[in-house]
């Protein structure tokens, strides 16, 4: 027996993910405009650690979301509301979003792992060092992190446009992800 909409846990995780991703984008643009760190200038310490905490948490959330989505699949969409090509585009966009979110998080962590700053997850769990500070590797992973983040923003724009398209048509497709 299948539900018409997505599982409630999936819905909550989806919207938690959405808010977190937007917060990370907006806060990162701001925090990169803060003074570079020195013993007297610690403006960046809290925002960067929070950025890492949320990023690592996102990996956990997206893996949970993937599990719930695959375990409790909703009923297929009515073919009168979605042509096969639109259906495949939607699947591709979702796969890209999942892949890019994971890529952004992993590259961000690897970039951070090559700095002199430790990662203390939510200021409680100290992550073991996986690499020595290395400026070149930090820059390499940092650039991948940035490019993956821009790509993610682009694909999110496509995803949001799709949702708004279906909302304007009032065809019930967005309701599948909006059941509390």
């Amino acid at each position, binding site marked *: 027996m299948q539900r018409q909409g997505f599982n409630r846990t999936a819905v909550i995780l989806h*919207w938690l993910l959405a808010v977190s991703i937007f917060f990370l984008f*907006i806060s990162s643009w701001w925090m990169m*405009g803060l*003074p570079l760190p020195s013993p007297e200038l*610690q403006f960046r310490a809290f925002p960067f650690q929070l950025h890492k905490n949320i990023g690592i948490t996102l990996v956990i959330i997206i893996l949970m979301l993937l599990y719930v989505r695959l375990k409790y699949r909703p009923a297929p969409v009515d073919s009168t509301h979605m042509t096969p090509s639109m259906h495949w585009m939607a699947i591709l966009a979702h796969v890209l979003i999942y892949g890019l979110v994971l890529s952004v998080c992993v590259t961000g962590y690897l970039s951070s792992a090559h700095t002199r700053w430790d990662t203390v997850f939510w200021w409680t769990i100290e992550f073991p060092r996986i690499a020595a500070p290395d400026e070149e590797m930090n820059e390499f992973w940092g650039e991948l992190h940035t490019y993956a983040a821009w790509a993610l923003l682009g694909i999110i724009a496509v995803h949001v446009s799709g*949702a*708004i398209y279906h*909302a304007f048509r009032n065809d019930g497709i967005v*309701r599948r992800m909006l059941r509390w």
Partner: protein
Amino acid sequence: MVSEGLNNNTPAWASILGVIAIMLGVFLTAVHGNEAMKQAVIVEHMPASGVMPEADCPPEELEEEGISVAECEYLIEHVKGMALSAPDWFPSAQMTLAGIGAILAFISIIIGGALVNYTPSASVAAVAVFSGLAIVDLLQFAAVVNTGPTLREVYLGGILLWFVLHLMLLVGAIAGRHTQANA
């Protein structure tokens, strides 16, 4: 076999208004959350003397950030300018409004979902939440108007845009309610 039916009788206005409220709510929760953090971080790390230390701009950091020495030094001046433009009451007022705004924005995501799966009470809640968000915008606008030119330049345009968006959502919800009442 499909077990759980969704509400397939949602009026078009509620479907559109709901999704737009959700999209804006997601974005605004992040914006207000960031604003609260911004004020907390600046207040906590400003030197008590008000005199900012020299910029520390090692070449490898500049290369990594893709900025010049002049820009690195300007980052300190920028934060200093923001702090100088803010009266003593401003950070706490802004943090409070941003906190309330973040909560209301998050609630507007839930309300948006309720509009998309339309129930008459969803539109009542939507009117209340969109009014609350518009009031937060107005209070923020009033607070920023009473600061210096640096902060006015940074904030006023954005706040005005959010106020217009919330006013449109509010009027949309009221119009939708009237439409339903007359149907």
